[in-house]
């Protein structure tokens, strides 16, 4: 994985000092809260319901064991012994003190980490495929391109005060594991007819209040124009994105209002101009970055055998593991969704244990997934049982990846100052209702996603089943959606009808799965059945 050189380290160290200075000026009164808020947000520091919250960047979701260990230590030293892994592949801490924040950033900088641009109206942490570098189906590792864009987007002077936040994802396989088309810019690395690698651009996707699937605006951007093309996309947005209404300020609204063709025309015009400005790093820079992402020293001829005689282990392998490009290796996902647990939360001990296992069994690498789980990307099959045993003993052995218990949930009204309803208790109750392995196995793949408000941090639009918490005259109410998906077949969920209270929404999910079990044909997932039979049979069962 990428290793900082003196320049990268200096940038992060300088940011720590800059933020320390900003905190000093806030505390001595030189900065009012109104002046300070955008500055602290650009450093990932929010005010949430109970305290400050700090979001730490995990660029494209990749971590080493030293970094992961420090994340656990920060939870103990500055927070309350746990952290929350987010749908942006980051981690956030819920009980942070302003006066300690510069020291946290200084600690993070010692392991090449930071909180730069994890919030605010700027280019956010760039997300990617959690299986990058390991997946059997990728054409290249997408992370070097994400790293190139990380550097370009960090402190980009023109784009620190955009109309609204800006999220970029980079993937490199047909199977989209990063919800790429639901980003402000989704980039798919592709190979053209001549065999060259380039970037396909989708612009103007997003969830939130107005969910949209990003249209493709360019089929192929050559690698030596990647930064320039991004700059053109961003400049058109910075100049013409709406600033009169924060709910209409995302690039998806600009692309929608201009029309894809007109937006594309403006980008191409700006792009042609910017090509004359020599802003593109040389390909040698991309090659330098790529050298950091070479394969780890896999053992040639490692055995492909797996002893599956332990039925619990067998279940976990079937549910949570994915094929690796290297014979004898496997990709293993640690579910942070134990039955009845808080999705995405991990204790400091669990975080350090995962770090240790990654060091010992996964070439020192971990990934954070947008589904709020952790991945060991390179586990030798011969070691897999030992890994699972250690995880299971720590409460991390849940076998439910992409099942109904593997719920994405935002922090909701338990933590978040924007939320209208609690998300986590709903997730916990559904998880318990479908707690048995047999029941989940019978239902099969079912992605359930819960947001506590319309901002959609819980990706409810993209859930096979989505749940949206709303405020109904001062009480929590939950709307139900069906048919969302974030993969190569991205689609947006449709609301079923009137909402439910907390007990009602849990029952409604069970009613829904019962209709599915009754109606499904051979081999159909819930999503397939819903797409075939439509809303009517479900509505009938839900509302009678």
């Amino acid at each position, binding site marked *: 994985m990428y290793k900082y050189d003196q320049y990268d380290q200096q940038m992060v160290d300088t940011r720590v000092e800059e933020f320390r200075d900003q905190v000093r000026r806030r505390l001595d009164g030189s900065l009012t809260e109104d002046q300070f808020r955008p500055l602290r947000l650009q450093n990932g520091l929010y005010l949430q319901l109970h305290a400050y919250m700090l979001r730490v960047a995990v660029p494209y979701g990749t971590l080493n064991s030293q970094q992961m260990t420090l994340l656990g230590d920060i939870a103990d030293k500055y927070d309350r012994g746990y952290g929350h892994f987010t749908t942006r592949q980051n981690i956030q801490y819920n009980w942070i003190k302003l006066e300690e924040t510069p020291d946290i950033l200084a600690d993070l900088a010692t392991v090449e980490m930071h909180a730069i641009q994890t919030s605010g109206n700027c280019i956010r942490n760039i997300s990617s495929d959690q299986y990058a570098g390991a997946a059997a189906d990728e054409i290249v590792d997408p992370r070097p391109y994400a790293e190139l864009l990380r550097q370009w987007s960090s402190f980009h002077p023109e784009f620190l005060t955009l109309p609204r936040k800006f999220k970029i994802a980079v993937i490199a396989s047909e199977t989209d594991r990063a919800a790429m088309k639901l980003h402000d810019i989704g980039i798919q690395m592709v190979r053209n007819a001549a065999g060259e690698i380039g970037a396909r651009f989708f612009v103007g996707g997003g969830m939130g209040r107005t969910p949209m699937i990003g249209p493709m605006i360019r089929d192929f951007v050559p690698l030596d124009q990647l930064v320039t093309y991004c700059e053109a996309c961003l400049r058109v947005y910075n100049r013409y994105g709406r600033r009169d209404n924060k709910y209409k300020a995302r690039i998806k609204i600009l692309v929608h209002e201009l029309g894809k063709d007109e937006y594309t025309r403006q980008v191409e015009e700006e792009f042609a101009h910017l090509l004359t400005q020599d802003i593109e790093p040389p390909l040698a820079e991309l090659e330098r970055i790529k050298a950091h992402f070479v394969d780890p020293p896999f053992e040639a001829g490692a055995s492909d055998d797996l002893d599956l005689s332990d039925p619990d282990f067998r279940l976990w392998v079937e549910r949570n593991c994915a094929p690796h490009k290297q014979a004898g290796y496997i990709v293993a996902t640690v579910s942070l969704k134990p039955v009845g647990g808080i999705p995405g939360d991990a204790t400091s001990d669990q975080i350090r244990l995962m770090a240790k296992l990654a060091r010992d069994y996964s070439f020192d690498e971990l990934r954070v997934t947008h589904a709020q789980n952790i991945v060991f990307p390179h586990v030798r099959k011969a070691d897999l049982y030992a890994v699972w045993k250690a995880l299971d003993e720590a409460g991390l052995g849940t076998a439910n990846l992409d099942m109904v218990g593997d719920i994405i949930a935002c922090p909701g009204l338990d933590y978040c100052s924007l939320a209208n309803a*609690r998300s986590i208790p709903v997730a916990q109750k559904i998880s318990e209702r479908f707690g048995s392995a047999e029941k989940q196995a019978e239902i099969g793949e079912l992605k359930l996603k819960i947001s506590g408000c319309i901002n959609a941090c819980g990706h409810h639009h993209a859930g096979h089943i989505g749940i949206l918490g709303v405020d109904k005259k001062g009480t929590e109410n939950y709307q139900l959606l069906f048919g969302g998906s974030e993969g190569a077949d991205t689609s947006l969920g449709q609301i079923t009808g009137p909402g439910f209270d907390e007990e009602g929404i849990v029952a409604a999910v069970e009613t829904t799965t019962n209709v599915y079990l009754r109606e499904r044909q051979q081999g159909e997932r819930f999503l397939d059945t819903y797409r075939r039979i439509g809303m009517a049979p479900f509505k009938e069962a839900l509302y009678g």
Partner: protein
Amino acid sequence: MKIVTGNDLKTGAVVWWDGEGWSKYVNSAADVGAGGEAIIAREEGARRVFAAYVIDGERNADGVRPSHIKERIRALGPTVRMDLSLKPGDPDASNWVI
């Protein structure tokens, strides 16, 4: 009653105006009547709190109850981590929120 709440500038902790200073217990909250904005201007100016605002609530036999669920969660702590709340020993505390 009208209550003033905000967050401690240095720590971010949720605090309630008790008539003389800031308390972390909602039951200490004072009825500020129409004086809320003046208290906020003075206290924010002195950088003791930030993000302060006035909310509605009522005082009953059990103490002070903010009208909106969001403020009751702020007053107690996350309902899914009662061990971290202000009433870690009370298994029924989260019912107060609803």
